[in-house]
């Protein structure tokens, strides 16, 4: 058994953790639940030796251990699978898996290395070309490599930090199988996730963190979404997934055709009306993200045709798309969405300098102040001031800033890739409200998401992608998770 006893940690004057208790049994999945900022990451960093605790004890099999570095934690048998993987992109999967053992002998037995790596991956119920460089693997495959890597040492506990967030529905089921394998190997698992459904499905017990305290530990029996949410928030909440209120306006038609995706056999296209929220479902690697990027002009696409109300427009580059009133919320918030080091003000203003500048690009500060403050207010962005760097915000608020920047641009067509990835429950429903408001105002929203439940609750229509093409369309009255999944897999 691995126990965390009365763990405390402060950053400066702020208490991130106060007297948190957690005990994990071998061969069990222990879920860790809490809003962003509740202290989950800090706790896991303490356990994995990335940061030092101020007080409390870590006890493994009855003996107290000091985790003063990630190396000691690893030697004590604690592994962590971060959301952003710690793999070396330019090395092969095999080399990454056995990375910690590589320096042990001068000569490398390549054949043996690949063979052992392949066997290890296979023991997780997965097939993978381990000779491939990691940068050429999909996110799901990288995750498998990361897990295999953790298994190369004598491991007692693996921490998963929101592992399913980066996966599509099919890959998630593979992950669950892998988890079963790990349980069978008598490895303890800490599983961090925002997805309540998932936690209810796979975990044996659940600990809820709130404001840096462990408020409850419960066995996974007779629980449901609402009970978990109540524990997380400390109060009852309405359903996270919401029905869209109001009647959508109908008008301009946005049409795209002739897009050839790298993974597809033939060209694809789609049509969306203003006031509509069109969902795009599909597994990771089915071309959802690539499609949005091609429409927006983030990547070049030959023979692409884009038209608004039968008026053909060119969207060869983001700058042109933006000028035509198209905006894109990218999948990767940190790398492509937010300019994290700069202020909220800079991040929002960037899409529409015309609004806040006089001739020659000089900024009218007062107008900008009022304008940004109004947007921050309207989208309920929690921040110290509009001059705070975006990196200081929680994931949900960062996402709201990115939505704010496209509202600021006046975009009529919004391409949104994973609207709520890494966003906590509270902010999630606020983001849905924003999307509903935009659609009700007659904007066209095209939403890609790996979360089928999310798509079904916010979209009017869902297109399902597989291998770079559309495999079917489902309208609201016929939504079912099974139907969508079948289209995506079969």
């Amino acid at each position, binding site marked *: 058994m691995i126990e965390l006893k009365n763990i405390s940690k402060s950053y400066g004057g702020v208490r991130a953790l106060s007297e948190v208790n957690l005990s994990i049994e071998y061969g069990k999945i222990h879920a860790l639940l809490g809003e962003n900022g509740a202290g989950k990451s800090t706790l896991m960093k303490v356990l994995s030796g990335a940061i030092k605790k101020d007080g409390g004890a870590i006890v493994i099999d009855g003996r107290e251990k000091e985790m003063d570095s990630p190396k000691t934690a690893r030697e004590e048998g604690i592994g962590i699978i971060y959301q952003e993987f710690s793999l070396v992109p330019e090395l092969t999967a095999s080399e990454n898996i056995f990375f910690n053992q590589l320096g042990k002998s001068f000569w490398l037995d390549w054949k043996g290395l690949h063979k052992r790596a392949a066997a290890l991956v296979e023991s997780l119920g997965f097939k993978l070309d381990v000779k491939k460089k990691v940068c050429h693997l999909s996110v799901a495959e990288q995750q498998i490599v990361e897990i295999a890597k953790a298994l190369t040492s004598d491991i007692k506990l693996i921490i998963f930090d929101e592992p399913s967030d980066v996966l599509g529905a099919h890959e998630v089921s593979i992950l669950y199988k892998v988890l079963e394998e790990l349980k069978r190997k008598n490895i303890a698992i800490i599983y961090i996730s925002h997805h309540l459904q998932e936690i209810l499905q796979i975990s044996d017990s659940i600990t809820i963190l709130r404001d840096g305290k462990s408020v409850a530990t419960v066995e996974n029996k007779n629980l449901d979404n609402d009970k978990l949410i109540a524990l997380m928030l400390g109060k009852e909440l309405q359903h996270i997934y919401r029905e869209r209120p109001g009647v959508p306006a109908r008008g301009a038609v946005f049409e795209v055709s002739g897009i050839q995706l790298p993974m597809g056999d033939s060209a694809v296209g789609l049509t969306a009306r203003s006031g509509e929220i069109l969902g795009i479902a599909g597994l990771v690697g089915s071309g959802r993200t690539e499609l949005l990027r091609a429409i927006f002009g983030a990547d070049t696409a030959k023979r692409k045709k884009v038209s608004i109300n039968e008026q053909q427009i060119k969207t060869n580059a983001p700058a042109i798309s933006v000028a035509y009133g198209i905006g894109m919320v990218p999948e990767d918030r940190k790398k*492509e969405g937010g300019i994290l080091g700069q202020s909220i003000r*800079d991040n929002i203003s960037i899409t529409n300098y015309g609004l806040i500048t006089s001739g020659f690009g000089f900024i009218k500060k007062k107008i900008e102040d009022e304008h940004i403050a109004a947007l921050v207010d309207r989208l309920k962005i929690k921040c110290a001031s509009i001059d705070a760097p975006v990196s200081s915000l929680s994931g949900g608020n960062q996402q709201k800033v990115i939505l704010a920047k496209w509202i600021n641009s006046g975009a009529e067509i919004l391409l949104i890739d994973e609207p709520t990835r890494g966003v906590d429950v509270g902010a999630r429903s606020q983001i849905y409200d924003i999307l509903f408001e935009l659609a009700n105002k007659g904007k066209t929203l095209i939403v890609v998401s790996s979360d089928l439940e999310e798509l079904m609750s916010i979209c009017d229509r869902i297109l399902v992608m597989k291998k770079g093409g559309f495999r079917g369309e489902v309208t609201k009255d016929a939504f079912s998770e099974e139907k969508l999944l079948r289209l995506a897999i079969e």
Partner: protein
Amino acid sequence: MMRIKTIPGKFYQYNTVIIFILMLIVSGAITENFFSVNNISNLIRQSAPIGLISMGMLLVILTGGIDLSVGSVVAMIGVAFSMLSYEVYFPVAFGLSLLTGLAIGAVSGYLVAYRKIASFIVTLAMMSMVRGAGYLLSKGAPISVGPHSSGILVLGSGSVWGIPVSAIILLIVFTVLYILLKYNIFGRVVLAIGSNEEAVRLSGIAVKRTKFVVYGVCTLLTALAALLMVGRTGVGTPNIGVGLELDAIAAVVIGGASLAGGKGSLLNTLLGVFILSMIGNVMNLLDITSYLQQIIKGVIIIAAVLFQRS
């Protein structure tokens, strides 16, 4: 947690000011003539060219790039101006020299922004080519400025009401750039590109154009610096300015900028320049040999950057 991060962030900016004031006090204390009018105006005249170059360098560094060609540009433009001064009127020679500087940066900027070659590589190659061009033009020998262009000496050595002309030029350029960085979207875009170029591109901003422009501005300012330097000596010399790019980068870094881009201050960069000049000036006043000077300078640069972080 947010609050804790921003408050030291504010102090951070003042660290360069503190180092600057410390340097002033120390310099005044250990040398007899530091605060004499003669020495101070000499110090400013010395600092003005490197000040101009460092401000240009800051712009490039803010976008996440680097320009190693500035030292060579100083030499080549000095030579070019001296040669032109025999052929055409002073203002024409002056203007053509600045244009040449701009053109060099345009080539670098084009290769970096539009052809996506790493700035380090591009400007390293330019450093070699431009240096070679300077030697080729002058056949390796220094060239004195022609008789019609003695006006250049006013730039380098003249004063208006006791204020060195070069200081006035430095102040004008500083003011223009300060306003552009603080009150114009140009500054916003430059900083944003340094923070996250891809996010800026996906926001619909013409990233390439801005990157192209900063390299042009950098070498334009470097050309102006070259003219100030010719104005001090009256000679265009093909072998000057070796290692100048390092001084400029050092000044920017002492000023607290991040070499990764997205963070830096114009005022602090200028203070960085004066800190570097003071180190040299004081050591000269103390009769320290130039070999030892180089070692001490390096130590002080590292100490200053460490202090920046504390």
